[in-house]
């Protein structure tokens, strides 16, 4: 049996974490440079995280679900 349908919030949370994970992988080099910048203090880390994850709004709830649930089923079983 497939696991019960994920709620909107669960999908959003999982997608955000995936999005952040991908973003930090793709921009690892640039992120290091930003961390070394003079103005990286106080709230800077929070700003960085919030800036990266705001891109999740580009994905509709359906698109988010599609991407998140792609991982849900093991290959080989329809």
């Amino acid at each position, binding site marked *: 049996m497939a696991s019960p349908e994920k709620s909107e919030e669960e999908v959003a949370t999982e997608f955000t974490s995936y999005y952040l994970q991908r973003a930090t992988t793709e921009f690892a080099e640039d992120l290091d440079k930003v961390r070394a910048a003079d103005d990286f203090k*106080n709230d800077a880390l*929070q700003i960085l995280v919030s800036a990266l994850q705001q891109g999740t709004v580009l994905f509709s709830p359906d698109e988010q679900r599609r*991407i998140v649930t792609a991982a849900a089923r093991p290959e080989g079983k329809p």
Partner: protein
Amino acid sequence: MGKRFSHSLDGAAAFRKRQKIAHEAPTSEDVHASRQLQQLLSFSQDPVRARHGLQSFKLFLDDLLNPDSDHADRPRILRDYLRSACPAPADDDENPKRQQELIARNLSADKGKAFIISPTLRMLKEAVSFDGGAIARPLFRARASMLKSLARNMGIVHIGDAAEDSKRPSARTNAILFFLSALKFLHAEAKKELLSQRDIVSALTRDVKQDPPYLVRELLEGLRSHVLLDDKLPREAKASLLNASTLTRLAALYHYRLDSQADDEQPSISDIAHRFLIVACTNPACGVLRQDSGFYPRGVDPNAAIPTAELDDLGLEAIVWMNKFKTEVPVRNYTLSNFLPNLRPWSSVKQSELITSIFKVAPELVANYFLTNKSFTFEPKLSATWIGYAAFLFNVVALSLPDHLCRATTGFPELPPPPSIVIDNILPPPLNQKTLTRSLTNKSNMISFFATRILVVAIEKLEEAIKMHQDASHSNKTVWAEAARRLVDEFCQRSPGIKEMINAYRSIPENDLLHREAASRLLRLCYEVLPQVALMAKFDVSPFLETALARLSKQELNDPRDFALNLKELENLLAIAGYSPGMRWLAASETLSLSPFTLLLKACVDAPHGVALETIRTVLNFVAVEQQLVPADDKHPGLLALLEALQLLRQSSPDSVTHLWPFLDNCLTRCANAPVKYVERMQELIQEASSGADQDLAGAVISPFTVAVLEQLPFVAAKEDGTATVKALGRFLPGFMGLSATAGESEPLLDLAFSKMVTHLSDSKGKLAKAGVPRNLQFQHNTSQPGRETKARKDRHTTARREELQTEPVLDEEALENTLHVPDGLEADNSALIKWSSKTVDELVDEGYLTALIALLASEHASIRKEALVNILKAAAKIKQSEYEEKEQIWLLLSELAETARDNINDGPLPSTIASFACHALNVLRDPLSNLYAKVNIFLTRGPVWSLDKLPLVDEVLSEDPGVGDAFYAQASWLLDYLTDGLRTPRDLELFHRKRAKGPVLERVLALAANPYMRAPLRSQVLRLLYRATRIQGGSTTLTTRFGIVNWLEARRAGCAGADAAAEAAVYAGLRRRIWETCDQDRVRAWSKGGLRDAVP
């Protein structure tokens, strides 16, 4: 006070000093007279004496309250004292006045005398909160004294590096606590006047960022509960407190430094301040926020009546204010407009959130904000500040447009808003072409990514704005349309060109999926929203598509989510390809091993489970139909058979699929390049098939692609390195052809084509050739018809039912047999004639030797039948002489059977129904507890010979009282078993459909299955009986023509609701198909006047 303690004490010293005071217990004395009390309480400069007097009074009062103590004269002493201390009546006016003067003098004492000011303020705080504010009103009447120097006192702050000690509050702290108490207990009118004291309101927050945390908390909480959220307080009163400078000072709390970090329980000061400001600035009841008109600035009339002729002539130019707001936007929310520039959204997430929350409720401020704050630029730089600014701008762009652009719920105004203001909301002025281009093409991928995302939301917002401008409800459509055009022009002037976007996309590293997705989405949006601009660029999407497909086919994406994200990019590119003419889907390229189409097909087949492929399938089908790879028939499921066959093969043999791709690609491209050739080949096949069998194949169809496969197969077979491919094709083609048949392609043609193919496949043992094209394969992966997904292919005809039948699950022949076939219970075993004699009676009855003997009465051979009869009689005699418990009944049964058979078996076999009944009745008699025991016995006692034409006990079971409780269904089950075993020959079948008083037996059985209370197992028994009938020569035809079985099955299938019933529905459908296949089709067609041909798949 502050000054007295300004010298810095180290913590330990301060601690010691306080301890010392606390331990110095005051002396006291007993009170015996009111006069003595008077002396004790008279004012004294000497603290020791003063404390002595107070302590004595305290003990006196404590004793008074002690119920155990003898204090007969104490109330009198107290009364006398109070009487003497009460001011004389002549002082009524004089006294309070004197006290007020005293208070005022204390409050306005020299700034250094905090030791006088603070206790006075504390006393006033207590007074105003006394008894729930009982005397707050008279106190406020004396405000000239009470509020004396309050503003100045609010400025007497704690001085020193360390935070203010809560046990030694500064005069400012006391003043603020007094002020907050006053706000709490004063009535609205008084509060309004209090808040109108500008100096006080100003002093209240001037030094707030230096205040101790607890005071800030109390201040914000007090102002929130007693000002912001006080419904009785008029808006103006609130507004006089929440002016721009108050808001700015409170915003300074975002960087409050004195917060104790250790306390995680409480929200931080900056959080509290944030919440306060959000409420203050976005709740219209708080007096700050004013209702605006969205994108229409203050002072313009969006419904101004302008003569139509003028509008037609001059367009937007006819509206005087249309071009006025390019550098300045007057607003209604001037407080907020003044406040916002003091925030630093790039350095604080909360400040950014505050501004966007305000923009949301006061959209007029967006253009105003950016036009008045030009200093900050978006010039790209890899720094926290730039990222913070980019994030802020993203949030601003992502804000939705105001309702009807003017924040009205009713509808659009007559005139459009100034395009400059709308565009300032879509791409705010810092986002100009220069900075955006420099960001988009920046060598830092992250900067480019941020710019891309902003442009994506901006184009989406532009699209929304254009839609609003094109709304059908506009009365001045021409000016709205002109305004929309201006929006597009303005946007193009601010946005980077499509070439820059393409270059930016091109330079994204291969593995940056998120970035690639965003950039491809941006390009796609350009094609959708700004097609005239996008198409000018003559952008050839094919290479990008090829790269994306190649990446997907490389299978380097371990995370299925990455695969899904990659598919999103692919979908964007496919959409662009759809917009750009001349996409070469089926052409070999230098860089790719396969054509884009085949790669897309491969991506679909290789996709991990759970990845949604609808869009890609739709594209594949669209292209397949366009390129004439498949029949362009609404009913044909397009490429589905190929896709399904590949998916099935990939499941069973992934390697085989790998070997297939080059061959399939070759066939697909050949087919696409010369479609007519393959249609002609198909016609040749039709002729060949028609000439062989006497069939009319006009209109028969198979996929041109299949014809191409047939054509190319010999070449690959002849190749030296083609073995693996041929082997793979051997696995692939039967499934593909079978599914093509399921998809509605002509079976004779498929058979013919397959027979030709087989000669080239490695089929040494002839297995493939023998098996032929498998029939009735089911679609497992692709249950939905893609034809329904595309708007262009929507079926408007009445073939919906037929389509439904095609897509319904239908059990194939093998599965149907597994489900419904019952082995022949009367199969002749001639050895039974000998075996029984050596067995005991128990074994004879219980282990089936007797039933095997009975079955031989239905044997085809007369001698066997006769032998059987003799042996049955012998066995009956043996049983009768035995000690077997049920010997009498069994003897009776066997004797009656023998009597019935004796005269009839010479001419032919005993009807199976009779033999079967005898066998099943025997089993009933073995068990006296059987619910049929009575019925069988009654039947046996009715007479010595049974009628061969009748089916014993049918009436008794179906029409009569079951006799034993709720045994009806159990008895029906027994009956169905015996009837099924009794249905073996056409002669038996004749007994089933013979007309009888209560209708033919078969009809009654079918009616039984329609009983809604009947459980599935019993329904299955009915279906087994029907299945048995289809195995008899002429059975299906009889079922169809005599009993309308096709409709009956269809009705049963349609009645199967819910997922659970799907399996049952498949059985009905499978049985219906089998009936059609096994009936005399010509006769049935004639009988139904052709109607049944279409009804049966």
